[in-house]
């Protein structure tokens, strides 16, 4: 089965198993989430390097820090929403010491549609982005998840990887061979307006650009799988040319990807912006598409906001 056919969490699990073949220092921890995060795929191949700490996210984070201090490269996996429970442990045990712990938050955004707001992490980019030393990566699809997990092993300090459950629109599979941490990608070139995304919104942005194209608006689609550090050179090269910038994320509009872009633009040179995301907790639904519709994160809405910005100029 090719990576494209896997779900994002399966891609993460497969990447860990493969990484375990390549590196003997990789260890994996879960908080009773071996099956749900698909870390099981690592456990099956490397059982001696797999640790289940029970439903104890704080212990998972602190013990991962200890393993890192003992010279290992720990990957700790649980639902992104529950990773947040260990926040202060992560701050003081991992970020403050700049230890090479990799946290993989699965079921991020709306992807755990069935379980509702308690399980839907919509603020994780914001809280990890603000921690010194952390690198934050939000892959768009399974292909990128697989490559990003492998690439994360090369990062010096701690990493937060945001991964969805099952839903994904394959959008990066042919885009590049090697994932480069900190690099943004031009998915579609354009000159009137730029649509910037991170994570699973990329597929929607591509659709939005098509809608705009049919209306004679040339829209660029820029993908920033690494939210921190941000690819400032890619951002500034487009920011200088286009009339406006739309950011789209499956996350709060506060403190997330759009905020990171706005902060950067404050130095590069401000542009009319629309920050698209959500402003409250999630909802239970039967499938993610219902939630994207409900929260207004659709290709049509993205195109409409882009058109507004072009019209303003």
């Amino acid at each position, binding site marked *: 089965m090719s990576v494209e056919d896997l779900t994002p969490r399966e891609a993460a699990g497969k990447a860990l198993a493969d990484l375990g073949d390549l590196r003997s220092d990789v*260890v994996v921890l879960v908080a009773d989430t071996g099956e749900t995060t698909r870390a099981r795929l690592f456990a099956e191949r490397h059982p*001696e*390097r797999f*640790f289940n*700490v*029970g439903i*104890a996210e*704080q*212990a998972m*984070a*602190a*013990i*991962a*820090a*200890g*393993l*890192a*201090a*003992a*010279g*290992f490269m*720990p990957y700790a996996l649980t639902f992104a929403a529950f990773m947040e429970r260990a926040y*202060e*442990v992560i701050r*003081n*045990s991992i970020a*403050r*010491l*700049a230890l090479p712990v990799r946290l993989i938050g699965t079921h991020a955004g709306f992807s755990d549609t069935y379980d509702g707001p308690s399980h839907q992490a919509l603020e994780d980019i914001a809280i990890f982005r603000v921690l010194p030393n952390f690198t934050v990566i939000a892959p768009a699809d399974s292909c990128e998840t697989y490559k990003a997990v492998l690439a994360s092993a090369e990062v010096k300090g701690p990493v937060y990887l945001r991964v969805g459950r099952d839903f994904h629109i394959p959008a990066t599979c042919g885009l590049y061979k090697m994932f480069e941490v900190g690099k943004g990608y031009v998915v579609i070139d354009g000159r009137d307006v730029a649509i910037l995304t991170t994570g699973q919104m990329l597929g929607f942005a591509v659709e939005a650009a098509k809608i705009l194209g049919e209306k004679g608006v040339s829209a660029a689609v820029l993908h920033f799988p690494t939210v921190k550090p941000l690819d400032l050179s890619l951002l500034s090269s487009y920011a200088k040319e286009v009339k406006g910038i739309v950011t789209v994320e499956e996350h709060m509009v506060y403190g997330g990807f759009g905020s990171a872009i706005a902060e950067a633009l404050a130095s590069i040179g401000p542009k009319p912006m629309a920050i698209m995301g959500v402003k409250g907790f999630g909802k239970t639904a039967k499938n993610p598409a219902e939630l994207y519709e409900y929260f207004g994160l659709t290709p049509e809405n993205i195109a409409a906001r882009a058109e507004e910005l072009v019209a303003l100029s």
Partner: protein
Amino acid sequence: MEQLSKIACEARRRLLLMAAYDPGIHIGSSLSVLDILTVIYGSGRAKFNAHNGVSTRNYLVLSKGHAVHAIYALASVFGHLNLDELRETGSLGSRLQNHPEDDTPFTDVSNSGSLGLGIGMAVGLALGLRLRGAQGRVYLITGDGELDEGLSWESFAVAASYRLSNLIAIVDLNGAQLDGPSEEVLRKGDIAGRFKALGFYVQTIDGHDYAQAAEALERAEASGAPSVIVANTVRGKGVPELEGSIRQRIPRDEALALASRLKCQ
């Protein structure tokens, strides 16, 4: 043992001197844990010249990081710190911070300061040492107040589940925490019993008796199980005016007066 007693007394005097220069030190807590640290360093289980970083040596994790001054005091008695530097503890730019930081000398773990975190760190280190096939052990010192934290018991349960016989926890049971007597702030119950129920090898000692501490450490090391030593201690121990008091911070004049009154054999 007599030698250890002299070392500890001189370390206590230096703690009082530090208190005169650094209003941020936790004197009561540092004094309660000092004898345990004296045995661990005095017996060579922990070394002052071991650097942070990857190694197969023993690790000493002071999870009650606010008592780090006890380690500074001992380091100075053992000749690893001069008095000038000791007086600078807590100053901006000094490497002797009031809680262990990443570049703090003589300490293995710098995630303490926030309670309970060192316990998880110690369990991770013990897992890592075992995975590496290393002979080193992890000596973990926690307070009793720190046992309020959920993380503490989460971590101990992991140690028990993975049968980490290279982990030796020592509870500095001084009976006091920020808001008052530990048992009044939050019920601790039968601490030894809680560890027994998890499957720890449990011993209870007088934490100021060097012989008891040394024997308990040897038995723990031979036990083949994750181990805890519940050490009954006294806040402010060794400074009669502070013994049994929950005071953590004392004014400069008092600290100097107490230091000059302290008679070491």
